[in-house]
């Protein structure tokens, strides 16, 4: 069974204080690992897809990296508008491409 574990559950940062979120996964065969942002009461918003170990993707203050067992979402010099829950999900080969999600990391960036 595919599993995704995210840590920490919650993270409070001062504006400008860089940090990383962790996503550990076990999957039968990884087709892709996805990062989404979710604001309260809203649907997940796509951020990145990573396909193989060593891959990195960047978007503004966010950078996602992937190893064979985990992924990191690095947030550089965050702003209050980066406050959200960040979700990690995996997609396995041999599936109908459905996503298995972790519980998320709730990020709060204080001004």
């Amino acid at each position, binding site marked *: 069974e595919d599993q995704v574990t995210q840590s920490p559950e919650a993270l409070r940062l001062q504006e400008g204080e860089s940090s990383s979120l962790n996503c550990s996964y076990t999957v039968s065969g990884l087709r892709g690992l*996805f990062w989404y942002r979710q604001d309260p*009461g*809203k649907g997940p918003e*796509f951020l990145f897809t990573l396909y193989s170990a060593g891959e990195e993707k960047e978007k503004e203050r966010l950078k996602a990296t992937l190893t064979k067992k985990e992924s990191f979402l690095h947030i550089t010099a965050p702003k209050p508008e980066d406050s959200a829950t960040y979700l990690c999900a995996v*997609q396995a080969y041999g599936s*109908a*491409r*459905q996503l298995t999600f*972790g519980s*998320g990391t709730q990020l709060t960036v204080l001004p």
Partner: protein
Amino acid sequence: EPEVTQTPSHQVTQMGQEVILRCVPISNHLYFYWYRQILGQKVEFLVSFYNNEISEKSEIFDDQFSVERPDGSNFTLKIRSTKLEDSAMYFCASFSGTGSYEQYFGPGTRLTVT
């Protein structure tokens, strides 16, 4: 920019009633999904739909649930006899079927069963 839309945004129903949640996926996408998120819990996969049939379903998706693509644009989730534990946010998602594998999610329907 194309987006997935869902209606209604909030549905309140009594236990035992039937509800239909509606979604309009991105127009050229081929794969459609329903997920749910109980308050404070993970987003969970319910069902995937491709080529006018269910391609995979989870254990949650029992005989009380059904999906349909009644025309070229809508994708619906029906719950025949709602239970209190069906209260959740229901998200529709779609994927193009080509290129990268990301799914795009709608804003969700909050279902409250009383």
